Each structure stands twice: as C-alpha cells, then as structure tokens.
C-alpha cells in the first residue's frame, strides 16, 4: 500500500509518512517508542474490546446463524418473503429519491435571507428533533381507523369521507414512505444547506457578471458543485433506510395483514414472534447483496472526497 493510498484510506496524512520524521520498523517515529508504543496500544484497547465483543462476535454469530442454504430456499418459497422484498425496494427506492430531491430543492428555499423563512426553518426542523417513536406514533394515530385526525380534518373542512388508510396496501405503504420522508427530510435539508453555504460567493458573483439567469446559475454552478454531496447523501440514506425498522413497525405495523412489512421488520417478526431466529437472520441477510456494493461505493466516494461536506 503506497503512502498516497494510506492517506486516502485513513483520511489523514499520518505522522509516519512525513519525510522529516524517520520511521522505526515498528511504525513509530523517533520519540514515540518503547513505552510509548505500549501507550498507543493501551489507548486502543477499550475500542478493540468493544469492537471484538460487540461487533465482530455478533457479526460472526449472525453469519453462522444465517449461513445455511436451506434457510434461503425456505424464504424463497414463502410468498410473504417475496412480497416483502418488493415492499423494501419500493419503500427505499421511492422514499430515498423523493426525500433527497425535495430536500435539495428545499435547501435552496431555506437559504433565503427572509426572516419568515428563517422562522419557518425552526419549525420545519421539529420532526427531526422528535425521537422516532413519538414521531411515528403520532403519524400512526393521525391515520388510524375511520376517525383518525386526518379523516376528521377531511370531513370537517372539505366534507370528504376519508379512506381507512391501513386497510389498503398502497395507502399503507404510502403512509410509511411519507412518514419516513416527514421525519428525515429536515436533516438532509440541513446537510444540503451546509453544502450550499460552502460554495464561495465569488463564483455566483462571477456568474452574475456574466449575466447568468437563476436557472443557469443552478445548472452550471450549484448543481455541479453539489453533485458529489448529493450522491454520497443518497447512498448513505439508502443504506440507512434499508435497515430502517421503526417507521414500518410503528406507522403501518405491517397492516393490512403483514403485506407492508419490509425486510427489517420481517426479520424481527420471524425471529421473535415466530420463534425462528435463524430464519430472521436469513431474511435480513438477504439484503446484503444490495447493501455491500452500496457500502463499498459509499466508502470509496467518502474517501476520495474526504467526507468534507
């Protein structure tokens, strides 16, 4: 591994690579040796202990639990599982893209200097600040039954009789997706706002001097400069959303009749309600062929751009 690669990999130029610091065979520059090497190890021990005991061991144990091919044959033969895979793809595919696109547009809206818009931003952040359970409980109760708050509102204001949301597959799935967007869009909006603020003003001034219209400013300045950030955020959000459990568990709870489950909730369901942990592990592990490539691409992107937003 060359030193450039090392630097990219660690995200930080290492002391050991600095030419003016001669390196000992043990990897420590002159000065940090002997007892100091022991110090370095001692500093790492707590993390290594946590890592081995609570990451490596459970991961290995999980791989062992879900390692039997029969489990996957059993899953593939189960129509509920196939249906759940489709749900997961819809939930993540629609959820991530709609959320990121809207967050990107809204980040432009919120960078306005108007005092009203600043005040609105404070309110808009609220779903992000709420803990997930109260947030999703609130959404659930808003839609539940015939006379949830939303239906009461529709009836009172427009005189429309609302549907029973969790009796319809598409409405329930849509409710899950919208609840997820509602909770997490503010966070990504803030990220994109930070990204926009980091664009130097003189680029825009130069564009103005050249007579660029707002659309051209967006197409030729803002978007190219934020495209990398947009991609990283989309990948990261996808990884997180594939593993999301709380939204579906609390909003639709799988209703109607377990048809809106996603892999994360199905896994817990198999493991703890049906008492078949290996099958539960197999269900979530079947997302790995999607998750691993995403993670690899994400890590490469993050290293190249140095995670700097």
């Amino acid at each position, binding site marked *: 591994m060359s030193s450039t690669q090392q630097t990219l990999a660690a995200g930080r130029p290492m002391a050991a690579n600095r030419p003016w610091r001669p390196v000992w065979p043990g990897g420590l520059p002159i000065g940090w040796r002997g007892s100091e090497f022991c110090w370095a190890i001692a500093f790492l021990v707590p993390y290594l202990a946590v890592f081995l005991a609570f990451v490596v061991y*459970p991961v290995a144990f999980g791989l062992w639990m879900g390692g039997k091919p029969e489990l996957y044959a059993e899953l593939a033969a189960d129509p509920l599982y196939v249906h759940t895979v489709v749900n997961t793809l819809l939930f993540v595919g629609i959820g991530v893209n709609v959320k990121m696109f809207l967050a990107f547009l809204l980040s432009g809206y919120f960078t306005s200097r108007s005092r009203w818009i600043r005040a609105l931003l404070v309110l808009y952040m609220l779903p992000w600040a709420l803990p997930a359970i109260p947030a999703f409980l609130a959404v659930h109760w808003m839609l539940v039954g015939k006379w949830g*708050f939303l239906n009461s509102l529709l009836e009172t204001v427009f005189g429309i009789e609302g549907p029973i949301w969790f009796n319809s597959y598409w409405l329930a799935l849509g409710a899950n997706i919208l609840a997820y967007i509602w909770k997490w869009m503010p966070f990504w909006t803030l990220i994109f706002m930070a990204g926009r603020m980091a664009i130097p003003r003189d680029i825009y001034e130069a564009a103005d001097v050249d007579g660029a219209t707002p659309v051209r400013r967006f197409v030729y300045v803002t978007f190219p400069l934020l495209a990398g950030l947009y991609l990283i955020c989309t990948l990261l959000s996808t990884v997180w959303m594939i593993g999301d459990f709380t939204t579906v568990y609390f909003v639709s709870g799988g209703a109607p009749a377990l048809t809106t489950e996603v892999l994360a909730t199905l896994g817990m369901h198999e493991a703890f309600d049906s008492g078949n942990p290996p099958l539960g592990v197999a269900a979530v592990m079947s997302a790995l062929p999607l998750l691993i490539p995403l993670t690899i691409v994400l890590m490469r992107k993050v290293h190249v751009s140095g*995670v700097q937003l």
Partner: protein
Amino acid sequence: MTVGVALVIWTVMPIYNMVLIALDSDADEYSGNIWPPDPSFESFQVIWTQGYWYLENFWHQFGNSIFIGLMTMGLTVLIGSLASFALSRMGLRRGWLLSNAALLTYAIPSSFLAIPFVHIAHRYGLSDSLWAVIAAQVMFATPYAILIFQQYGKLIPLELDDAARVDGASPLQVYLRIYIPLAAPALAAVGTYALLLAWNEYLYQFLLLSSTKSMTVAVALDQFFDSDEAPWNYMMSTAIVYSLPPIAIYYALRRYMVAGLTMGGIK
C-alpha cells in the same frame, strides 16, 4: 408563500394530533374532533404523579433512559477519543485498517445486527440489563466519533504534540493536556450525537429490556399497544414528555449541530 403554508401544514399536522390527543380528557381517539372539546392537562398530571398502572414506574423508567443516554455519551467520547488519538496522532503504521473497520461498522444497519446481538447479550449474562443497551449504543456511536475526531484532529497541529514531548510529556499527558482541550468542540458534537442516538433508539431497548424496572420510556410507550383499553391521552402525553429533552437539546445547540454536521461527518 404557498410553499411556506404547505410546509407548515406538512410539518405540524402529526405533532398537532399528538397534542390534541394528549389534551383530550375522555381518551377516545375516535372522537372525530379536530379541536379538543374540553382541553385539560389532566393526563400530564397523571404522568407527574404516576397515577395510572402503566405509568407506575414512569420516573424510574425516565431515569433509565437518562442513564443509558449519559453512559453512552461518556463512553463514546472516551473510547472514541482515545482510539482516534492513538490512530491519528501516534503514527501506528496499520492504524488505517482499524479506522476503516470502524467506518464499516457505521454502515451496518443496527436492525440487521439485532438478532445475533440479543443472543450474544444473553451469553454475556446481560439479559434485561441496561448495560447491554449501552454496549449496543456505544458500538454504533463510536465509528462516527472516530470519524469526527480524526477530521477535527487535522486542525490541531502535530507540532504541539512534539513540543510537549520534548518537554518530557507522556502520551497520556499529551492526550489530557493538549488533545482533549483543543478537541473540545468535537467532543461536544460527538457527545450530543451519542446522547440523542441513545435517546432515540427503540429496537435494542425493546429486545433487551423486559422487566418494568429496567424498561426505558421508549419501551414503556410501546406497552400501551398491548391493551385495547389503554388511555391514549396518557400515551400521547408520555410521548410528549419523552420528546421534550431532545427537542430542547436540538434547539439549544442548533448552531453547533449544523456546525457538527459540516465539520466533516454525516449525521
């Protein structure tokens, strides 16, 4: 303007619904009202006095949530800063391997690891123990901590370490006297992140804590669903009380949170 109005309605509706149910005195969620007909703070008083059997241990459970949050915060900051000090300032040759392993953990969805983790916790004798939850939270928060500390550590000149070493400081002294004071903003950002992560988490608390004495508020909230006759106004007011501390932290530290995000980490 239309965008603004739409955003307000979109954001506020579920939250308004929460408040509406909490203030409704007759506890029937099917009332079909969009305004509380007879608003009262009775349900908050019931929580305060623990006057309902689901809420018998509310303040104890609230204490459990706080304990998990604070322990996760302290341990994440301690373990993360020690590790990133050793990895990025002591020039370990294979250090990048460990940093990368840490980053990979960041990409493991916590729900995917839950099933084996529960088994492992039982093996460690940590069933129904708050420490099992703390271990899980620390493990998910530390990779982010290491990421942030390494990014932030770039801003602290290595020459300071050298100068201290020339004066005969041990690595521990360099860590305590130079690294920790100078990295204070990063420590605060990571600490807040870990605290909120632990406060917001549900799945591990639900799977690992079973007795009413070790339960947290998050798990207790879910208990309301076990009964058909549960008073939903009590549930919603519990949810509101549970939401207040993180909301206070988010709004008090709003500027620093955004600064923390841009400091080089995501989330």
